[in-house]
């Protein structure tokens, strides 16, 4: 049996995320100029000019500076919309699993409905209707991606509320709020934490997708918008598309690895399979 800190995927994922977070934090220091400014000759291939090690795009903008500033947008949107999704998902799942009965029936129908309509399409429509800004993008991605959390939390609550310690708390007259927040929720954190990594990963993918389709915040550089711009030069300078794309892949991969590693380390059922 492996301890969580012995999972190599956790270390690998955490290391990559640290680099991305550092790039985001230091973007303003390392690249103080506006990443949307022209700094060199357009179509400079990576390695051709030491001033712009990753090359320039078709408007002569520094790709490395774009990557660093784009990391801010990706992480900010990814983490914030995951938090929005977590808040909605935990609230819906906890209410459905705790109160059961009619509450559960209604909330489960709503969850099912949100699972039925394509989340990305609904996010596109919300952003298009509300006008693209970082705030509306976070909102749109958050309200369209909470269903998996809600189902997870509901299942946890359904099983945990039958446990003896919960019944004991009921017997001594604990309030619903105490039962939910003090007794049950603290024991349901493990699967929630594991799924948070996936939520952030999916939000980063979706944000890049929105920006690629031209629905990003027009005032900031994002990895998705860099890819969308590079697409116009796909035949002559495919590196403009490849480089920001690799940044997305690495970040999402790191989150997935971290989440897989935590899952394997924290989930006793998987550990048994692993030992078998």
């Amino acid at each position, binding site marked *: 049996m492996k301890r969580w800190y012995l999972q190599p995927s956790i270390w690998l994922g955490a290391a990559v995320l640290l680099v991305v977070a550092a790039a985001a934090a230091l973007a303003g220091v390392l690249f103080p100029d506006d990443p949307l400014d022209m700094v060199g000759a357009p179509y400079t291939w990576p390695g051709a000019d030491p001033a712009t090690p990753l090359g320039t795009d078709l408007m002569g903008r520094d790709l490395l500076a774009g990557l660093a500033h784009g990391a801010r947008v990706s992480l900010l949107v990814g983490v914030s919309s995951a938090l929005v999704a977590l808040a909605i998902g935990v609230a819906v799942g906890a209410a459905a699993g705790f109160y059961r009965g009619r509450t559960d029936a209604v909330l489960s*129908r709503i969850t099912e*409905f949100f699972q*039925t309509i*394509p989340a*990305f399409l609904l996010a596109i429509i919300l952003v298009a209707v509300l006008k693209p800004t970082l705030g509306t993008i976070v909102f749109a991605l958050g309200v*369209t991606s909470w269903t998996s959390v809600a189902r997870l939390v509901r299942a946890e609550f359904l099983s945990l509320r039958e446990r003896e310690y919960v019944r004991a708390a009921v017997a001594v007259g604990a309030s619903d709020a105490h039962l939910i927040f003090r007794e049950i929720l603290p024991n349901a954190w493990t699967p929630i934490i594991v799924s948070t990594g996936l939520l952030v990963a999916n939000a980063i993918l979706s944000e890049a997708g929105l920006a*690629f389709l031209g*629905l990003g915040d027009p005032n900031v550089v994002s990895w998705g918008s860099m890819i969308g711009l590079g697409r116009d030069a796909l035949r002559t300078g*495919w590196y403009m598309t490849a480089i920001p794309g690799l940044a997305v892949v690495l970040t999402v991969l790191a989150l997935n690895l971290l989440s897989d590693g935590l899952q394997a380390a924290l989930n006793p059922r998987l550990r048994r399979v*692993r030992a078998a």
Partner: protein
Amino acid sequence: MRIARSLLRSLLRRLLQLLGVVFATAVLDFALLKALPGDLVDVIASESGSVPPQYVAQLRQLYGLDRSLPEQLLGYLGRIAQGDLGYSFRFGEPVLNLLLDRLGPTLALVGAALLLSTVAGVLLGVAAARRPHGLTDTVLSALATVGYSAPMFWTSLMLIVLFGVQLEWLPVGGLREVNAGYHGARLWLDYLRHLALPVLTLAIYYVAVYARLARAAMIETLAEDYIRTARAKGAREHQVIFRHALRNALLPVVTMLGVQSSALLGGSIVVETVFAWPGLGQLSFEAIKSRDIPVLLAVLICSGVLVVLANLLVDLAQAALDPRVRRAAQPPRQPSAATGSAA
């Protein structure tokens, strides 16, 4: 007899769900329309450029925008019930016609991608489950993790660079060569060649999803007692895997197909956009660019209907695979971790 009854019940359940989804989407659509700055008629007027004021007033009356909100909602629902999804000024066509035109290409794309990714995913998953944490498993698992970490629009662009620009093997956009004048088998081959890269893009992502799922299910199934019994009876390894274990391991995969169908439709938006594949996704993108909100909302309703129908097929497949589902008509078990949206 009992089988027929349980299938009938599932059919009825999905039909009710269909009505519920259409109703809820319509209400959501209505709320979004109301959230827009200006009303529908303003949107239409601004889109089509110059519209005479009398015509605007006429439109307001036509859409009943001079009446109260509940009346408007009822009217909206009534029109949708009659199949009237509105008129797109951008495309100069009723929205319903637009949807029907674009449905075929999307179904072809999504269907082919589903078929390829389930078959390949299950086979790879089975191969990986043979020896958990062995070499094959480690390599396949690593590839799968990379496969579903890449954004689809980027994968498609990279495939275009490789197969379209560098190697020049495959066409990179459209449904077919418009001016080639192909007929018969040659025309079908042309369709397939155009379908190849978009399908491959979707498949790279979903093969990874299904391979992971099939692997986990297969490892769990292979640890069951009845598998040991089969081995003890002297069944050959491929018999144990393909006759005894696979049937059970397929259940979560099939369930996931239903859960994933809406994400797959969402993913097809970007893929269709990149490859200029004239389906619902590209229609949505064109509608975004021209802020043709009625078309977007209609695509949303249409997607909901498609997903419910896909889930009906999943019900039938589950009944075919699992006798317990057939007899007890109890809701089949759901996979615990649903991988979410995919751009």
